[in-house]
């Protein structure tokens, strides 16, 4: 292939894909989830709507899997866009007004995120004089625009993972989406943000205050999204906010990865751990909630029990994937010193209380939920079962550094207690809330999916596909022109009069003679 410069993509040959160390876990996760969720979606979608759904699902899946192995800027951006843009069709599949609104907000934020990503990629590529992600990441640290690059990347990642104040994008994306598609979005799509942290965020490029700020943002997101999630009224919305909350934890790891190279390696481990853990668990919850909602009697009870596994995993209960992920994260944070990392380290277990509350709320809502439209077939159990199995074992058996510490300490009473007490606190608090039913009733549904972002739709409405037509008013100058015309025509009429003409000639002669003699 003829190459004409390090920064110029040469056709399709320039797109480089590589299955490297970073790619393997993400490739496995994304491929598995897109396939399994797709199977669920296929089975639960009426035949005449399948074409419409999969016209968006398939490209999104291709992008979503390809992004894991994309090794250069162009293919990464291509896959990112290919995954994110068609997802609009998944979100708006039901064609309801709410789904359209959610789609508009999603698309707007996604497009902004992509713009930020592209800007960052361009700056990184020129900084590293290469299109290869690995070299670009190295080059970014040396670039004079390193801070800007990091800011652009963080902006883009925040929009993807729903960091505050954009947490609403996740519940908006899941609430109206068919369950299978929502599972893919929640399990795989959002994790691209985690992948981007590893692939793109340069180590050692910005100061320690950046590290602290990002960690704080992650922590605030972890708490804030949980609070908002508890106040919503649909299982899918709760799951959305729960994702945002969990991704807040990932963002803490992302913050750590901005530090020096040693911290970066651990942080990357934590990010991978969280991606696997949360991706599988969240997918299992979304699929399971759908199965449970359409099941009756004893089947429903069994389904709810099975749902407890991923729910406990999110809380970080012992022997679950969440336990592994939290351990990896703690190890990474522990490496850093300073007031903020230490504070975050101290407060980290408390986030599990929020998650636990979210899971309790989820179960309440699922039990409350009545079955909606009858489906052509009951949601299949097999895909969900597969995901459940993966949730249970994946993080434990994955050959890597990041789960070693968790495996070693899983039997220590200390760690077991650390992993358990937040859940107990949450349950206690939950019971306590029953004492004040009036307050609870008032708070129920205070948050609508999308929270502050829904306000964005008012702005978007002005640019919707029904804009007011802009008609040009008739020119108001015509009257003035007409007046001018009258004056000029009258003047010309006077000039043409015989007497004026004679006078003019005399004057002309006089003027010329005068000039000649002057």
């Amino acid at each position, binding site marked *: 292939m003829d190459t004409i410069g390090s*920064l110029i*993509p040469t*056709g399709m040959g320039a797109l480089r894909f590589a299955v490297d160390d970073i790619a393997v876990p993400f490739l496995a996760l994304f491929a598995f989830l897109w396939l399994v969720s797709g199977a669920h979606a296929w089975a639960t979608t009426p035949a005449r709507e399948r074409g419409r759904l999969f016209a968006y699902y398939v490209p999104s899946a291709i992008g979503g899997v390809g992004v894991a192995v994309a090794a250069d800027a162009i293919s990464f951006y*291509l896959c990112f866009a290919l995954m994110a843009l068609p997802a609009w069709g998944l979100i708006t599949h039901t064609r309801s007004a709410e789904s359209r609104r959610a789609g508009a907000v999603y*698309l*707007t934020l996604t497009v902004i995120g992509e713009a930020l990503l592209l800007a960052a990629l361009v700056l990184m590529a020129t900084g590293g004089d290469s299109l290869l992600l690995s070299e670009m990441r190295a080059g970014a640290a040396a670039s004079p625009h390193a801070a800007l690059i990091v800011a652009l990347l963080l902006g883009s990642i925040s929009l993807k993972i729903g960091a505050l104040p954009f947490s609403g994008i996740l519940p908006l994306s899941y609430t109206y989406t068919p369950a299978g598609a929502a599972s893919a979005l929640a399990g795989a799509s959002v994790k691209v943000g985690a992948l981007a942290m590893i692939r793109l965020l340069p180590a050692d490029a910005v100061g320690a205050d950046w590290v602290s700020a990002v960690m704080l943002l992650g922590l605030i997101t972890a708490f804030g999204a949980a609070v908002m999630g508890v106040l919503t009224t649909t299982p899918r919305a709760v799951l959305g906010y729960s994702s945002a909350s969990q991704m807040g934890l990932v963002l803490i790891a992302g913050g750590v990865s901005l530090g020096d190279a040693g911290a970066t390696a651990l942080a990357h481990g934590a990010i991978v751990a969280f991606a696997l853990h949360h991706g599988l668990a969240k997918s299992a919850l979304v699929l399971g909630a759908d199965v449970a909602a359409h099941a009756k009697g004893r089947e429903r009870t069994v389904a709810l029990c099975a749902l407890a596994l991923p729910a406990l995993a999110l809380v970080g209960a012992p022997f679950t994937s969440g336990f592994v992920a939290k351990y990896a994260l703690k190890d990474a944070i522990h490496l850093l010193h300073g007031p903020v990392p230490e504070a975050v380290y101290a407060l980290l277990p408390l986030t599990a209380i929020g998650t636990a509350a979210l899971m309790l709320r989820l179960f309440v809502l699922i039990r409350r939920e009545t079955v909606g439209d009858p489906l052509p077939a009951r949601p299949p159990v097999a895909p969900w079962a597969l995901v459940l199995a993966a949730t249970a074992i994946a993080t434990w058996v994955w050959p890597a550094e990041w789960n070693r510490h968790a495996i070693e300490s899983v039997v220590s009473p200390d760690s077991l207690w650390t992993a358990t007490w937040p859940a107990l606190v949450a349950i206690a608090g939950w019971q306590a809330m029953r004492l004040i039913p009036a307050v609870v009733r008032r708070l129920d549904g205070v948050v609508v999916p999308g929270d502050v972002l829904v306000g964005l739709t008012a702005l978007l409405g002005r640019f919707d596909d029904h804009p007011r037509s*802009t008609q040009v008013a008739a020119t108001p100058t015509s009257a003035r022109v007409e007046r001018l015309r009258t004056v000029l025509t009258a003047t010309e009429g006077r000039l043409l009069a015989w007497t004026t003409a004679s006078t003019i000639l005399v004057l002309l002669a006089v003027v010329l003679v005068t000039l000649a003699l002057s």
Partner: protein
Amino acid sequence: MIAWVPVAVPALVGLITLMLGETRGRARNAVNLLGAIGSSAVVVSLVRSAYAGDTFTSRIPMLPGLTFGVSTDLLGLLFSAVATVLWGVTLVYAIGYMDHARDRARFFGFFAWCISAANGVALAEDPISLFIFYEVLSLTTYPLVVHNGTPEALAAGRKYLFYALGGGAALLVGVAWLASIAGPTPFTPGGALGAVAGRNNELRAIFALMVAGFGVKAALMPLHGWLPGAMVAPAPVSSLLHAVAVVKAGVFGIIRLVNELYGPELATSLGVATPLALLAAATILISSVIALRQDDLKRRLAYSTIAQLSYITLGTALCSPLAAAGAVAHLAHHAVMKITMFFTAGSVYETLHVKKVSQMPGVARRMPLTMISFAVAAFALAGIPPLAGFASKWLLAAGAAEDGSVWAVLVYVTSGALAIGYMVPVLTSALRPGKHAPAAGPESDPRMLWPIVAVAVLTVVFGLTAGLPGSPTHWAITAIAPSFGGWTP
């Protein structure tokens, strides 16, 4: 003399078309199509020669000390090839579109003349020859703009002329002034004004005048007022105006001005490039926002054109080799993307009488192939890889970044986001269920449908092959390299 062929053949075709008159439709179509195919073939062979290093130049003595000449350099040939090849495609479309229209002899005759003038702009070897073709282009476009003869069309035509001739006057003064201080200045990669380099204030004024002249057709704000109104013209004309010949003549003029008359170095040291870049950046952002609010599809596309043209202007004004190459590549890429969209708008109007975005529900089901083509072009325009628009936008943004103009990078990515903002509602509206039932037979006149598909395919092909020899991107890089002292990427 071969260098005159791309100019002469369409001119001749136009003349024959007008002489054939209204009634001999078959002969007219045959002459036009043969002319387009013939001159495309010649352009292609000229491109091959130019790649091999052979350029042909031909001049005619004109005014005292001045010649009127064309030269087949790679840069000019890029624009020439775009104009000539898309002329052929548009002809097929127009034959379908204008099937029942009146005054077809006039339409096709002036259409061919427009292409002739655009080729002249492309190949003109010095500012004066370029100016001459530029003015001829203004004039030959007028009958096309007012083709419908409605009061609305006449008003748009008046506005067009007001801007075009005003710009032409500024250009004339600039060109004449330059000639009076510098004599003949054939375009030379890297700049042709070495002899008068010291006369900075005069050179600045001349630059401003010429930018004012080219800026009208390049729709550089605030000189863009004519463009949205000119949408009243028939769709093939809008395609020609907005995608291929007319507006591109403006940006091409700016490309020549910056790269081959002043040269990037002089343009930078005189401090004239940065204001131009800022103006272009403002144009990009403002017109993109305005485009968001247009309900009339063609008007929306018009404002999008204004923004996209300023991509090219901005890339050129940055005076960085990569961005300059991106600008030239975008000239070709935007041509195929935007012509797809205008073809679609015209086809949807001719078939379903739908003009507004808000009337589009159901259109996607009724005209699937047409709307898929539109979607391809829309995403290409928004800079989604691997389509054409991404390749040029990448070069533009990377050039801006290399140059240290981070703000320009942000402008490019912002406008890409805005492009999705104004393009996607068209698609979402068309995708909604609406009153148009799926067609039983072909979705539209095949003479309109297949050109749309063809240009949409070009959009994909240009993107997929970007950077490979012969692709617009590679071509642009090769053509622009000499202006930066033999720069290689």
